[in-house]
């Protein structure tokens, strides 16, 4: 394999990997705030892309993206309010099944609204053929958009959780819900906020990657599985770990295409997931405490 080909694989891996990382971060935000694993996380990415494509017919691209993010964030809030908020002490089994059901409903809703076709946003800068030379590989400018957006999301979240009042309150809520509530922190609204945030970043990722990978009603499920793999790999709840793990998984998956038939690309990821769950559920970077599932409620 030539160096140039290797670099192409690497770039592809990093691109997909950063999307997986964003999905994983979305998982982590909700998990940290509530202990729930939101199986519908992948659908937020899908909705972001799909809504943006529809909006882009009517308004300029930046507005379409902003609108899609806002709309998906609203969907996230709706999901929380409708399905999660009023449950008293739901068991883990129940929550799992509910979020799976929600994921299916969102997916089928998208199918009904947009049909089976694939669609994509126009390239943010340039077009399908424009390419930048990056260390010898020919890379689409959209890739830079993806990587840049991911970095921006990570930076924003670091700032948010590290230096803002609301972010601190969410961390308090994650750490000890009862104590936080006793301090007057509006825990129920923060739970909604966690869904809103996860949905928003998912949607943004969906928009920025859709020119490269196209989007359709069915992409949510596989994305959720990969995002979950990355979240576990990086240590559930640990978003720095998620970024590292996402990039690693993306590259591994990309390189596996050179060894195995493309149809088995998913099998690689899934086997990694199984292996990690079995061998080291706390992930590469997580603590053993984190791997003990929290209770919701």
């Amino acid at each position, binding site marked *: 394999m030539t160096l140039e080909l290797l670099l192409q694989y690497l770039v592809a891996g990093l691109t997909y990997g950063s999307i997986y990382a964003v999905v994983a971060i979305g998982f982590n935000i909700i998990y940290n705030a509530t202990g729930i*694993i939101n199986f519908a996380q992948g659908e937020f990415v899908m909705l972001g892309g799909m809504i943006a494509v529809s909006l882009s017919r009517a308004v300029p691209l930046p507005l379409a993206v902003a609108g899609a993010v806002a709309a998906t964030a609203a969907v996230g809030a709706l999901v929380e309010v409708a*399905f999660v908020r009023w*449950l008293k002490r*739901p*068991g*883990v*089994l*129940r929550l*799992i*099944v*509910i979020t*799976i*059901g*929600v*994921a*299916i*409903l969102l*997916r*089928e*809703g998208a*199918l*009904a609204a947009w049909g089976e076709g694939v669609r994509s946003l126009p390239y943010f800068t340039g077009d399908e053929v424009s390419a930048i030379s990056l260390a010898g590989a020919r890379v689409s400018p959209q890739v830079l958009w993806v990587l840049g957006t991911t970095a921006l999301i990570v930076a924003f979240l670091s700032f948010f959780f590290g230096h803002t009042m609301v972010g601190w309150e969410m961390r308090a809520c994650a750490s000890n819900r009862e104590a936080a509530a006793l301090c007057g922190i509006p825990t129920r609204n923060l739970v909604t906020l966690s869904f809103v945030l996860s949905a928003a970043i998912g949607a943004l990722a969906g928009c920025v990657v859709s020119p490269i990978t196209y989007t359709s009603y069915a992409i949510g*499920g596989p994305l959720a*599985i990969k995002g*979950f793999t990355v979240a*576990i790999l990086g240590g559930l709840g640990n978003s720095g770990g998620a970024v590292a793990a996402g990039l690693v998984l993306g590259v591994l998956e990309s390189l596996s295409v050179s060894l195995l*038939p493309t*149809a*088995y690309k*998913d*099998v690689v990821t*899934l*086997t990694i*997931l*199984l292996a990690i*769950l*079995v061998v080291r*559920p706390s992930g590469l970077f997580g603590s053993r405490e984190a791997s003990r*599932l929290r209770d919701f409620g």
Partner: protein
Amino acid sequence: MRTSRAAQVAAFGAVVVAAQLAASGAGKAFFLTQLTMSAYYTLAVLGLSLLMGYAGQISLGQAGFFAIGGYTSALLTTLDLSSRRGHPAVAALVRLHLATPRPDLFGGQVLGLSPWLACLAAVVLGAAVAVALGVPVLRLRGHYLAMATLAFGTIVSSIAVGTQALGAADGISGVPPFELVPGLRVGGGSADRVPNYYLAWGLVALAMLLLLNLIHSRTGRALAAIHGAEDAARAMGVDAGALKLRTFVLAAVTATVSGVLLTHYNGGIGPSEAGVMKSVRYVAIVAVGGMGSLWGTLTASAVLNFLSLRGYFGAYDDAVFGGILVAVMLFFPDGILAADLRALLSRVAPRRAPGEET
């Protein structure tokens, strides 16, 4: 208790017969085909009900085992070994009636493995995979277990879709009928509709009897204890880990057998049977029927599968099951049918205290 159980199964038998007479009498004998398919799906669902309702373990991979059963038997029975007739192993198989010649579509002779051998191979494979998967994975809790079984199901599905030898997206077709005993076979054409119907639901009745017996036995009690308060169960001498594994394997085997039988009935199998949506469907049905209630689950399975197969849900098939799942979990976590059916049945066949016999 045994009388009560026998009465339940007898009542069920009556319903099965009544349904057949009604369908045939009303000129809708083709309903029997979908009902037969529902019966085979119900086998898989019943196993899952035991796992989820009694052992309290979720599995999103039941369709994966169904596919292992279906694909293994499809592959082995559609093999053509006729070019290797001379080989001693093949000759031995023929002599033992484990490889049977059949006419193919073009008038030639095809030599495939006997469905009994294929079924055995499928069950062994399914059980082995269940053990290999279950040992590490059943230690996990909640979300992790769900995701692990989901990953397993998706792996099987991906392999089924992506492998040429398994027919890729088209699956495997031309699977011959499965002759259980001379004169009684799974599969065949519309002339065999009624016997197939009774055979399928007869197998379901048998499975119900075995499972009901299990639930009311020492093992069933131990399983319910694990679900009720696992620490206390362990303190009372219940080896929870071993029991969960065995239940997981049992559930996997019911799905595997279900896959084998349905594949022979349909004459083929495709990758959609392995998909996550099928696993979700099984979970939804168990949820509707009530996690601990076998009769409830059977009813839910018969009705929902039948409606789905008849196309009543149209393009919204998956959405319906997804919606059912959410609705049941939100509003009826104990299952819609569970409570009512139990009350109904206890009026039909009153409960006796355990240990009392007729």
